[in-house]
């Protein structure tokens, strides 16, 4: 039997009529109200259960630990020596350059300052992840 011919052989009035006879479970009364009652909590729920939030805290922890062990200046100099990082360095040369300069001139050794910087970076990461999850609700 010809496969292509069969693939298109799905229009079937007999089957359509028969399947239309089958019962359909109806949604319960008050369904709309139940949904509407949940809507004001959307923002709170999003904050509480957002998958990105756990990642943010995980990355925050790793960043702080890295800052403690390596120190800010060393992190920048290490990043600068990575080959793939050079592409970004060229692209955002002035920004990264001034950032790097700032680190070397100030000689940041304070963990507190490093935490503030890490938190700022994490805030941006969080924003990006939230945007991605909002645009892909079916991915959650």
């Amino acid at each position, binding site marked *: *039997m010809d*496969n292509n011919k*069969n*693939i*298109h*052989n*799905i229009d*079937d009035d*007999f*089957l*359509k009529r*028969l*399947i*239309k*006879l*089958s*019962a*359909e*479970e*109806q*949604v*319960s009364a008050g*369904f*709309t109200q*139940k*949904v*509407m009652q*949940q*809507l*004001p909590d*959307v923002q709170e*729920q*999003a904050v509480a259960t957002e998958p990105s939030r756990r990642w943010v805290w995980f990355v925050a922890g790793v960043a702080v630990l890295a800052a403690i062990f390596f120190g800010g200046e060393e992190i920048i100099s290490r990043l600068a020596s990575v080959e793939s990082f050079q592409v970004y360095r060229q692209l955002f040369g002035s920004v990264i350059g001034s950032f790097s300069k700032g680190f070397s001139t100030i000689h940041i050794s304070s963990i507190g300052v490093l935490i503030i910087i890490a938190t700022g970076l994490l805030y941006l990461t969080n924003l990006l992840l939230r945007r991605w999850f*909002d*645009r892909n*609700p*079916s991915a*959650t």
Partner: protein
Amino acid sequence: MNYRDDSFYIAQVLDGNQAAFATLVEKHQQLVFTIAVKILRNREQAEEIAQDAFVKAYAALSSFKGEAKFSSWLYRIAYNTAISAGRRRKPEYAAIDESLTENYTTDEIYPQVEAMSQQEQIELIENLMQRLPEEDNLLLTLYYKKEKSIAEVAEITGYSQANVKIKLFRLRRRLYEDMQQTLEKMV
């Protein structure tokens, strides 16, 4: 009730009129619930999942660009939410026979089914559809009962249109084969 186009209510919601979302819920709740109940086969859980789907859609409404139909976008959210909720369950049904040979003749089936009372026909088709895996049951419902186009079924389920056609072809054949067997037993 006569509804306006979905885009009207979406614009209202995005303008801060949250109550307009209730109309979207009323308009689409039945199919969202049907999708959930076909996948989960559990009325209570399906209602929860249907509610979740609407809440997710509301939260993501600003990102809906109107490239696809709102209904398809919403049904896709419902489908994925239901699939995620039911993912832990193991498949309970045998795989569909992959052969292309048709082991039935509609010439024998049609007169026997037409001779049945409407109640007997309902019992027959419901029994046959109940034996199918959840997703296959949903595909048949969307295409034959809800008369969704192949393109819409593909958007909702995430399958390619070609894949939807192949699945429907096989499901149709399986239904007829099972129907013939059932009718033979009845005789």
